[in-house]
Each structure stands twice: as structure tokens, then as C-alpha cells.
């Protein structure tokens, strides 16, 4: 179980590292990044949000909202998550997506925990933050699918967003249990039969906030990179929604390659308190999971 805790910690830290590595180049094209940085391999800060190096954005913030709610509740709590989202929105975070803002505002003003279906809700805002749900539900795939869609529906109600959350949940569960990367690729092939639009064999290089583009970019760079650093460097230099694609790649690569895979120089740039809190939350969520409680 200690190995699983360590992978969980690496997955969550990988999410934060990916966020802070990609955020400085969010919304830039691959060409613009090449012109400015050559190949971006360091956590440099700046970007449209004028970040300090190592600062994280809404991707990590919202994942923390979920993790803190579940840890405090000692298990699943949708209202706990929604309350944390509301508190976070009022705290003037460095960035909030328009769809996330609208869903959280509707919860604050009307108490709605599920936003109505909307054709424009196929963004990546629900998938980018779902890791803590995968940790809490390790060992029970059915519980994972129910919970990951419930948390998504606070802000995003679209089958493609739901599908991305469930596919990522299944892959993360396998990676946390130590399944090899080549076996992960095989398992994903089976999942893509039900989620054809996430196929990435002929990757077009589209890396927008549209969840289909995000998932193709994530799978393309996760399976192309041969270690944690290569996976993330590939994702961020693709540009577009670089912090979100790198955060999701970071969670998969973290679970896969473990803490030893995450470059020390990147960890040094991160906020010490953030890393300590992530460490504590990751362990707590694994210990609450069906897998741990059954053992």
C-alpha cells in the first residue's frame, strides 16, 4: 500500500508541476513558444497571468478544493466540493474558466449541484481537476465513474466531458496499481472503442480547451514521452491550453513513474507548503479508498 500512496502523491504533485510548467505558455502556439523559448524545459513563470515561477492556476486549485473536501468529509461529499469551489471563487483566484465560474455561481445563488446539459460544456474544466476522485475511489471503478461525473456536473454537463473524466479515472486507477505503461496503452485502446473521438493515432496537434483536443494531446504526449520529463516537455511545447494538458499528463506520468521520475529542479520551484499539503491529502485519500479499507 505504501507504493500506492507514493504513486498517488506523485500523481497529485505531477498535476501541480504540469500546471506551473505549462501556465507561462498557456494560449501560445507551438511556433510562438519555439520562437520565445526554443524548447521550454524549465518552470519560468510569467505568461498572460503574470505568474511567479512555480505558481499554480485553476487546474491545481480546483483539484485541491476536491481533495480537501473529501479528506475533511472522510469520504464522498458533493456539497463539500461545491462549497470549496464557492469559497475558492470568492477568493479572487488567479484564473477561473467561464464555464466553471458560471456553474459555481449558480451553486452559490441557487444551490444547483448539477448544471443543465449545454452543448458548449465540452471544455476540459471538469476533467482537469478529477484526480482526487480517482484516489478516493481506488478499488471501486463503479464508484469512481459515479463520483467523477457528479463532480463534473457541478460545472460541466456534456457527454464528452463525462467521458473524459471516466477514461482518465480508469487509466489512473491502473497506473496507481503499478500497471506498466505498455499495458496502459492496451487498456486505453479498449476504452477508445467507446470514446472514438479521443483517438490520437493521427494526432493533429490541436491543443485547445475543447476536451477532445485536450484528451488527444494528453494521450499523444503521455505515450510518446519515455519518462516524466519528456511527457511534460512534449505537452507544454504543444502550446494551447498548455497548463491543463500538462497537468493531466503530469497526473498520469506521476502515477506511472513515481516520485523518482519527477525532476528535482522542477520540485524546487514549487511552493513547499503546497507540496506538503498535496502529500498529506494524497495519502489520506488513498487510506479512505475501498482498496485500502478492504485490506
Amino acid at each position, binding site marked *: 500500500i505504501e507504493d500506492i500512496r507514493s504513486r498517488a502523491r506523485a500523481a497529485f504533485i505531477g498535476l501541480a508541476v504540469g500546471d506551473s510548467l505549462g501556465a507561462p505558455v498557456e494560449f501560445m502556439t507551438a511556433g510562438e513558444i519555439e520562437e520565445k523559448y526554443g524548447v521550454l524545459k524549465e518552470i519560468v513563470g510569467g505568461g498572460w497571468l503574470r505568474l511567479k515561477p512555480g505558481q499554480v492556476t485553476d487546474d491545481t486549485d480546483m483539484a485541491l478544493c476536491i481533495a480537501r473536501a473529501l479528506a475533511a468529509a472522510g469520504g464522498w461529499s458533493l456539497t463539500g466540493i461545491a462549497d470549496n469551489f464557492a469559497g475558492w471563487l*470568492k477568493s479572487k483566484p488567479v484564473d477561473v474558466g*467561464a464555464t466553471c465560474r458560471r456553474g459555481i455561481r449558480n451553486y*452559490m*445563488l441557487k444551490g444547483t449541484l448539477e448544471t443543465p446539459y449545454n452543448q458548449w460544456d465540452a471544455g476540459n474544466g471538469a476533467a482537469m481537476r478529477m484526480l482526487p476522485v480517482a484516489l478516493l475511489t481506488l478499488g471501486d471503478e463503479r464508484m469512481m465513474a459515479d463520483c467523477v461525473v457528479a463532480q463534473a456536473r457541478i460545472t460541466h454537463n456534456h457527454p464528452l466531458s463525462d467521458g473524459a473524466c471516466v477514461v482518465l479515472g480508469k487509466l489512473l486507477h491502473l497506473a496507481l496499481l503499478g500497471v506498466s505503461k505498455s499495458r496502459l496503452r492496451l487498456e486505453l485502446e479498449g476504452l477508445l472503442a467507446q470514446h472514438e473521438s479521443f483517438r490520437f493515432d493521427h494526432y493533429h496537434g490541436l491543443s485547445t480547451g475543447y476536451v477532445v483536443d485536450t484528451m488527444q494531446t494528453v494521450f499523444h504526449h503521455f505515450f510518446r514521452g519515455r519518462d516524466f520529463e519528456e511527457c511534460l516537455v512534449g505537452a507544454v511545447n504543444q502550446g494551447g491550453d498548455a497548463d491543463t494538458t500538462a497537468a493531466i499528463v503530469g497526473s498520469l506520468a506521476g502515477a506511472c513513474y513515481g516520485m523518482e521520475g519527477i525532476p528535482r529542479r522542477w520540485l524546487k520551484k514549487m511552493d513547499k507548503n503546497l507540496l506538503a499539503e498535496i502529500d498529506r491529502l494524497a495519502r489520506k485519500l488513498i487510506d479512505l479508498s475501498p482498496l485500502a479499507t478492504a485490506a
Partner: protein
Amino acid sequence: LKKVEAIIKPFKLDEVKEALNEIGIQGITVSEVKGFGRQKGHTELYRGAEYVVDFIPKIKMEIIVGDDIVAKVVETIEQAAKTGRIGDGKIFVTPVEEVVRIRTGERGEDAL
């Protein structure tokens, strides 16, 4: 969709913005205007002589919102902008038929 327009005292801008932030509203367009009303202007000294300036600087805020939260937005601005003294200002609600987010082409409430 509605447009909520508020003419308020300039020193109240931050307080109104804060109050709107508490209900999840961030998108606002602000302009500097001059108000004529019951509140009288002030006198200014110019080259030793006193002049009466009859307008008062105000701030105009424009916020487009969905129909379901208009009342809440008006109430929030009203409470935050009020001092109880003459010249606190006015809030107007007008109909909006369409909104477009230029960056993405989204329309309607999704454009807010």
C-alpha cells in the same frame, strides 16, 4: 439577458466590485461620467476666484447578466453603493437581445 447599469459615487467602485465578486460576478465595464441631479456641485478655486462646478464626477458600471440573477445583482449593487446621502446614484435595468463573446463566437448566456 439584461443590462444592469449603475451610476455610483466613484469611491464606491471597489466596494461594489467586491460585493459582486462575492456572488461570482467578475465581468464589468466601467466608465467615468458626470452627474447632474439633486446633489449640488462643489466650488473650485481658480486663479483666486471661486467658481461653482455644477456637475459631480460619477462612475458608471455596466454588467450584462442572465434574467435569473438580475434581481440579486441589483440588490447587491444597491446595498454596497448606498451611503444614504443625496447623490448615491441610480440603477437601470434594460433588455438585451443578444450577447457575443468575440474571442470564441459563443452567444447568449454562454458568452458572459
